[in-house]
């Protein structure tokens, strides 16, 4: 047990936890925009998979992780628009339209992978950036300031989103549309336009999350997300639809995972308990939410399509 409290172990857990948290964080943040405006998108995992494959394939062919990220953004935008079409204009039942997107994304990404790539080959990852000065701090430097560039960008999206949601007109519209679409509509806010925007943002970020996942892992495999998209959706609830909460939730989940892994590697957790240990992040997330006793309620209009005059 004492092995766990060595410098290298602690640093490894924190750095690893941050890495595991990032795709969750980005996807969850995207879903937050949509849910805050009243739309539930269960297709996040499917969009992540498509973005992951698109990003991977682009880097495989061009060698540039940044182009891969760009393709991930593009795929995310397209799938976001499709999701918006289904949920907002066609008013499809939000519980399952997303599942259709998930099944499609899972299957289509795997299909293209088998046909266009065949045997998986590694790709260039994002460059690491040691933040000058900060990265030399003992302990903290390795934990926080020696990551790949996208990780910093992902975390920067949190305060940015806080600003957008709380301080801009767009953000105000999002919140209004999510709480009381009828009132917002009567004030001249186009409910459908706001929701189109938020759902597209959600899809875009899901695509980005997938691309980050694949490129940072440097490889692709079928079902590479392993249902992380659903965890990301769950974390939206955990974070009470607020970017800061999302960040904390993703970090909690990532850190618990990393901690359990480290304990397995150091043999503190014997192999017989391996499966039980794998439940830990899920259990802790539930317990954390119970303890925190969420005083936050969901956006009142969540999952309800809006029709003027209905």
């Amino acid at each position: 047990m004492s092995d766990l409290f060595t410098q290298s172990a602690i640093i490894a857990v924190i750095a690893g936890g941050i890495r595991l948290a990032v795709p969750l964080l980005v996807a969850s943040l995207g879903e937050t925009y949509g849910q805050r405006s009243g739309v539930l998108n269960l297709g996040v995992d499917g969009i992540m998979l498509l973005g992951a494959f698109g990003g991977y394939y682009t880097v495989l062919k061009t060698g540039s992780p940044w182009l891969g990220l760009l393709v991930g953004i593009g795929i995310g935008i397209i799938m976001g628009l499709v999701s918006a079409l289904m949920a907002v204009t066609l008013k499809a039942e939000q519980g399952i339209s997303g599942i259709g997107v998930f099944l499609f994304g899972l299957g289509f990404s795997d299909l293209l992978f088998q046909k266009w790539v065949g045997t998986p080959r590694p790709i260039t990852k994002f460059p690491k950036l040691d933040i000058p000065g900060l990265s030399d701090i003992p302990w903290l430097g390795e934990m926080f300031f020696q990551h790949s560039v996208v990780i910093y960008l992902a975390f920067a999206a949190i305060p940015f989103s806080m600003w957008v949601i709380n301080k801009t007109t767009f953000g105000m519209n999002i919140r209004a549309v999510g709480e009381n679409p009828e009132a917002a509509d009567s004030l001249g806010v186009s409910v459908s336009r706001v929701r189109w925007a938020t759902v597209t943002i959600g899809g875009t970020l899901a695509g980005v999350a997938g691309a980050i996942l694949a490129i940072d892992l440097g490889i692709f495999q079928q079902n590479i997300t392993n249902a992380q998209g659903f965890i990301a959706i769950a974390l939206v609830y955990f974070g009470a639809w607020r970017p800061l909460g999302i960040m904390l939730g993703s970090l909690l989940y990532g850190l618990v995972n990393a901690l359990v892994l480290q304990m397995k590697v150091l043999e503190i957790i014997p192999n017989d308990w391996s499966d039980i240990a794998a439940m830990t992040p899920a259990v802790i997330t539930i317990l954390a939410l119970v303890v925190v006793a969420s005083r936050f309620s969901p956006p009142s209009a969540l999952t309800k399509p809006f029709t003027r005059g209905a």
Partner: protein
Amino acid sequence: MTSLDEVQKRRLLAYSVPILAVLSALVIGAIMLIALGADPIKGFSKLFSGAFGSTSALTETALKATPLLFVGVGITIAFRANVINIGGEGQMVAGGLLSTIVALNAPDLGPFILIPLVLLAGLVGGAIWGAIPGALKAYYGVNEILSTIMLNVVAVQLMNYLLRGPLIDPLEVEKGTRIPQTERLLESADLPRLFGSGRFHIGPLVAILAAVVAYILLWRTPIGYRIRAVGQNTSASRYAGIPVKRTIVLALTMSGALCGLAGAVLVFGSESHRMVTDGSTAGFTGSAGFNGIVAALFGGLHPLWTIPASFLFGGLLVGGLALQRAVQVPSALILALNGLVVIFVVSSDRFRKRLLERPPVVIEDDDNAQPTAVASSADPPGPAGGADPGGGET
């Protein structure tokens, strides 16, 4: 042209909408098949014949549809209380596990006692796994989407632990291979086969029975009334004295119970007569926990309509496997195709509902010769955004 003809035409159009949606998805599927160099005609004829074209095909379809039906009916009950149950996967696992544990520890009491016993155990296992998120939601405000997703993860890991540990087949330990499976369970607990030596067992019939019971429950009992009331309007229900929290817990518990029953049927109706997985997330359930949600919504959240919906969706799944074998495309294509079908059918639902709305009745006022429109009545919105029962609700 009387207004009655108009209504007939619209109704006919409405019912063709889901068929057109499925066909549209299949058209895209055909394009993908052609792009992969496969013959779409051969493929799709195999899809249909593999699903419906022979007794064995129909049997496979019915068997595939069974867990979908159980889960779908369970989801429907929860949805009616405005609770989204994405935990079907975990509840199936919990039900499967408890029924297996009972079978492994019970003496051979003969099929008449053992079978109801293990099915009951499945019910209880799933009920517990549904009661947990129910209680968490009602008493701690923990959102059910979060808790059910997390509990799915917990259930799968628990299953892996038990099937590789305490419940493992002693033969596996002997051979050292340690496949996560139990020993062959008591023969008396095998679900009885019908129609001779075929594969059809009583599972589908139990599922249909469950759907009927659910229908009666929801529309003919006070409990069902409370569930629907809470789903329509929580505050009004509270004012009316309905114990909202307990009803929510009850709805999720019942939903879980049905999913648990699905898990038990999977175990005791299975070919291998044991509980087996491969360690992966959907290794035991085959994603029936998610596909059941699709079936529920295809059935318009009405237990009786979920029966044909599950059967048809099951047919699509079985037929898809046959298509894959026949034209040798990667299984991934079938998965994508399933997704497309769901997307198209769900997206077209709005048109179907629009067509089912009774158009405004026009009364001609002789004096003024000006038509006065009487309010059109759209079907009242159901829980979770406008899912309507699709006919026959009293």
